[in-house]
Each structure stands twice: as C-alpha cells, then as structure tokens.
C-alpha cells in the first residue's frame, strides 16, 4: 500500500444542485425569531462514484479519509448584500475494513464507510445511497431574530460553497451557488 494514485478519470466535477431558502413564516415581528432553512445537494461524478467499489480503491491507496468542507450562509440585500448568518463545517467519510457479515458475508477485504457529520456524530450508513445522502445533502436551519433583519421588507438569499481535496474521487476543487432570493417582512 502506498499513497500514490491518479484520481478517477472522466468524472464530472461536483456541483451544487437545487439550493433553496425557506423561511418558517413570510413575516416576523421585531422581537420574534424566524427559522431560515437552506437546502442543497452536491451532484456530479464524485457523488455517483461514492460507492463500495471506489471506497475499496481509495482504501488500497491509503486514501482513507474524504473530507467535504462546507460554507453555508444567508445574505441580506439586493446587489450590495450583507452576510446575515454563516457557518463553516466539515463532513468526513472514513473508510474502514468491515467485519459486519451483512455487509461482508465472506469476510474478504470489504471496505465500508463511517460518516462523521458536523458536531462529530459518527454514523455507519445502511447502504451506499444512505452514505451519499449523509455526505452530500445539506439542510441547515438558522434561527434569526426579527431585530437582526430590522423593520421592513428584506430580500434574502442562501449561499453555499463546498470544497474538497485531491482524492480518488477527483482533483481538488470547489463549487458555489446562490439561491433564488426570497422576501421576508419584519414588523
């Protein structure tokens, strides 16, 4: 084993799909809170190739930890916007040799994944699809006060950036996207 590999060729670069911002209510009182939920997914080659076969290749090449760094936030305003809230977090996929007979009935070298979400809660996904959801689908709810917005009508938009290093799943890179604006009123 040696950490010497060429990332898989011909994979489409990861990109952000379907970013949206949803308020818990279209209006908020000055002294009340409002929940703003950002949702998006990463799509593309690395997501599609995030399966047991590629985990095995990664493992064999000492490429045992795959990290996704996310920057997610909400901006307020039109052309000149101001960041209202923002959060940076990392999700990790750690590849390991499983002896779970459900996943590895013949106990040969079968590599499975443990996903460590932000806040460091580890989870062993049930299947490959489940692992992709955990790593690449994001839903974040930010709680803001009406007073953070100020009285009046506001244009809000969510933004997201994802970045990653060089791994079997592709060269290092990043992607970002902004949601369609929404309007929220503070009374």
């Amino acid at each position, binding site marked *: 084993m040696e950490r010497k590999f060429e990332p898989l060729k011909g994979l489409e670069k990861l990109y952000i799909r379907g970013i949206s911002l949803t308020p818990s209510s279209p209006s908020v009182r000055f002294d009340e809170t409002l929940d703003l939920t950002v949702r998006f997914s990463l799509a593309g080659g690395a997501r599609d190739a995030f399966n047991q076969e590629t985990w095995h290749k990664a*493992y064999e090449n000492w490429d045992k930890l795959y*990290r996704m760094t996310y920057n997610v936030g909400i901006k307020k305003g039109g052309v000149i916007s101001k960041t209202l809230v923002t959060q940076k977090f990392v999700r990790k996929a750690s590849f390991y040799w499983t*002896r*779970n007979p459900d996943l590895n009935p013949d106990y040969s070298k079968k590599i499975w994944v443990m996903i460590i979400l932000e806040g460091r809660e580890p989870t062993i996904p049930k299947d490959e699809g489940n692992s992709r959801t955990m790593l690449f689908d994001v839903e974040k709810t930010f709680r803001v006060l009406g007073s953070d917005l100020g009285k009046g009508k506001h244009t809000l938009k969510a933004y997201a950036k994802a970045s990653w290093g060089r791994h079997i799943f592709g060269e290092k890179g990043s992607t970002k996207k902004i949601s369609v604006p929404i309007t929220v009123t503070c009374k």
Partner: protein
Amino acid sequence: MAQLIHIEKPIETSKIKNFIRQTQSVCPDCLKILPANVFERDGKVFMSKICPTHGECEELYFGSYEMYKKFSTYWMDGKGTLAPNVPIEKCACPTNCGLCSNHLSHTGLGNMIITNRCDLTCWYCFFYVKKGLEGAYVYEPTMEQMTAMIRTLRAQRPVPGNSMQITGGEPTLRDDLPEIVSMIKREGVSHVQLNTNGINIALRPDLAMTLKKAGVSNLYLSFDGTTAKTNPKNHWEAPHTIEACRKAHLGVVLVPTCIKSINDHELGDILRFAQTNIDTVRAISYQPVSLTGRMSKKEREKYRITIPDCIERVEEQTNGEVTKDDWFPIPSCSPVTHFVEAFTKKPQYELSIHFACGAGTYVFFDPETKKLIPITKFVDIKGMLEFLEEKTEELESGANRYLIAAKFLSKINSFVNKEKQPKGLSLAKLLTAALLKHDYSSVGQFHLNSMFLGMMHFQDKYNQDEERLQRCDIHYVTPDLRIIPFCSFNVIPEWYRDRIQQKYGIPIEEWEKKTGEKLEQRLYRGTMRRNIQKHEMNQMACATQAAHIEPITGT
C-alpha cells in the same frame, strides 16, 4: 496456523434494539467464530453472540455510549504491515496470526517473553511455571532465538518495529537480562521497556543502574493499588523500586490492573501516589481486567470494568481534576502522524489501534496549587487535530510545504491558552520543533512535571471483537519468528501462547539439571516485609492516606 473455522450465520440486525454495529467474536466455550452484535442499552454498550451449542453470551463492551460515540469518530485504519509473515488472501481472524497480510496495524509495542518463571505465585495467575503440573515446562529462549525474534520485528515494513517490552514471568530472574537489553538496542530498537513486579530491583537497587546502562528506557511496574490489600504483589517493595529508579534516572510506568469491586475505588489514589513521585513516574497505564478462565455471568458482572468506567472513577476520585472530557482514544494521534507523513513524504510510526482498545491524556502538576492540570485545560486538542487534518489534505493535494509550514506557524499558538499553560512549558514551540523540524530534543520539557495517563483494555473470550483484534498493535514476537497480536496470543492461549512456549520450552527437571538451580529457589520470601516495623510501614507504604493501610497479610 491453519484452523478449521466455522462461521455462524449473522443474526438479523433489524431485530436488535439500538443496534450499533456487527462484528465477529468467538464462543467462550468452544471458540467457534460467531457473528456478534454491538448495541446500546441504558447508556452502555454491550456485545452479544449466540453459539448454536453453548447459547448466548452477553457482555458489557464499553461502559458509556456517549464516550463510545466520541471515541468512534477517531476510527482510522492504519498502514498495516507490508511484510506479513503469514501471506494469506482471505481474512479468518484469529486463526492465522503471524502477522497475516490482513492485519491493519504494524507493531506499536513488541513484547518478548524471556522467561515464564516468576518470583511470585499470585493465585490468579495462569502464566508462571509451577511444579506439580503435568507437562509443565520452563520457557526461556536463547540469545540466538531472541536475536532472530528482534530481527523479525525490525524487518516489518513500512515501519520497522521500534519499541520493545521485555516481559515474563519475571524477566529480572534471568541473569543475562542486561545482555538481552543490549542486544535489543544493538539491533536498532530505540525504546526498551521492562515489565516487572519490581521486587528484585527493590532487593538489589544497583540493578536499576545496570539496566539503565544496558539501555532500558523505563520500567513497566505492576502496581494494583495503594494498600497492601489491593496490592498484595508489591505494596511494600514498590516504593523501594521507585527509589532505586530515581537514583538511576530510570523512568517508571505504573501499571494497575483494574478490577471492579477489588481496586476500582483506588484509581484516584494511584494517581495521587504517582503525583508524589512525578520526578520518576512518567505514566500510569490503567488496565481494565481481562477475565480469563471460566466465569459465570454473575461473576463477570462483579469484576467487569471497562475503559469508560475507569475514566469515570478517575474523575470521581480526583474530585474532577481529571474529567472524562480530558481523555481521547489512542487513534486520535492519527491526524498528527498523517500530517508528519504528508510533510515528510515518509511513512511514520502510527498508533492505529481500534478506538475501543485504549485511551489517554496528559496531566501536568502545578506545584503552586498542588493540582493536576490536564492538557485539555490549556490546549484545544479537537481544534488542533481538525486543523492538522485540513493541512494534511492540503499537502496531499499538492500544496507547497513551506506555505503549509507558514500556516502552521501562524495558527499553532491559537490552540494553546498561554495563561493556563503550566509554567516552563511552551507547547506551541515544542510542537513546531517536533512536527516541522523533527527535532524532539525539547520533548523532555514536556515530560517535566507531566505524566501520561493511559488506559488499555485487553480482550478476553467474553468480549472479544475481531474488528479490534485486526487492528491490535501490541504484539508478541515468538521463536517461530512470528508476530502475534496480544489478544490472540493471550485470549486464545491454546492456539498461540501455550502451544508455542511448550514447543520451545524444556521440562522443569531438565531445566534444573541444566542450570543446577531449583525452580523454587528464586521465589520471593517476603524478606522486605518481615523486617518492616509498624512505624516504618506508615512511612514507606504507598498509601496516601494512613487510613488505607492494612496489616501485612501472610507472605
């Protein structure tokens, strides 16, 4: 070693409440390899397995689910060995240890048994050779055999074995011990630890200096409690052993075997005792007991203690000076190792054991407040590990190493709270020297007034987990030139330890004839205890509180 293996069908995990993961284990009665479920109940983690012949065996696996979750986030498989002694395609742990091609950790600490004779006859010990047992043998490898064993260890790739423990029986019973130590050093091993009950050193303090000169780095001193009742082995002798080591500038690691209901109330006192000897005691290695022999469930429940339980006892018994949040699993060192690997582009020695096998922390002694300061009180360990992981990825993605070094230098201080950092210590400087320049000369500063606290839970037939075993990095070297994980060697002695030692041992009578000695001649007769006057007992005993001192029991 080819074994006929039976693997049972797994149990449907969807039927198990609070299922965590499935692994493999053995039946404690017939050793059949079984699927085993690890699950949570009442905030604790249990393991359960069902043998078609012997029924279900359920055992406490980890005393806190919260801690299990925290520790499991550091799960990181290691480099393993690139030069396996047992090349094998398919994994069938624990039947082919040697190491086989499937093992996932290189040797972190190699053990070499140099004798199975002992100067004590502890009732619970199955290991030492005694007369009257059919087929009893004395196992004492020759210098040639030992040299070959060390060479096997050094032949490991990508990282040659570099840390050895000489063990027994009682290794100091071998008169050629200094020569054995010198041989190990000559073969290129840098760290040599001596596992001992310390009695011979207490009796002959000059031995400490002889061993130090020969190349012993530290003693691994059995120390089960601070009272004669909890530590019948060496309660009266251990202070003399430590004193001899102090004079020889030889470090000591105290090794308490922790047993629930026997000595688990003294884990804090052991730490206090170590604290009063911090100039010589470098570490404590708490070892939750592994239960050998046949035991009923009730008995096991009486004695079973796991790493989180010991950690909780330490918190209670130090009045919160060392809390449960201060401990990290051993594989949490991986981000540091991987950073150095990415920086130097050379494979490094790594501690890639399973997260449930061991934990550790560093504590510093503040002479002003007389309190212990765990490293977590002035270093953001989690933040630093995350940072190193990020920088490793950048290096591996082609970032310029000088740029990363600059980022490291500008950031490293932010993880250390200088106000709370013990006086005389500059951790940021030390880490910079060690991680970027590979200069470990200032590491001594780190050990000044500090102690490593470790927990290492060796397995037994009841809680054995092949996922842990496959990642074990504490190994035995054997005269058939194999390297065998600790928990195969000792958990299934009928396949490994006993078989190998019998093969390479000689009958007691033959040994007596050969050496002109009687086996019982070297037994410790308690001479140091007989001469102790009552008032001296109070001065010399290890107990930090006089109330703990028990009368001497028969020696």
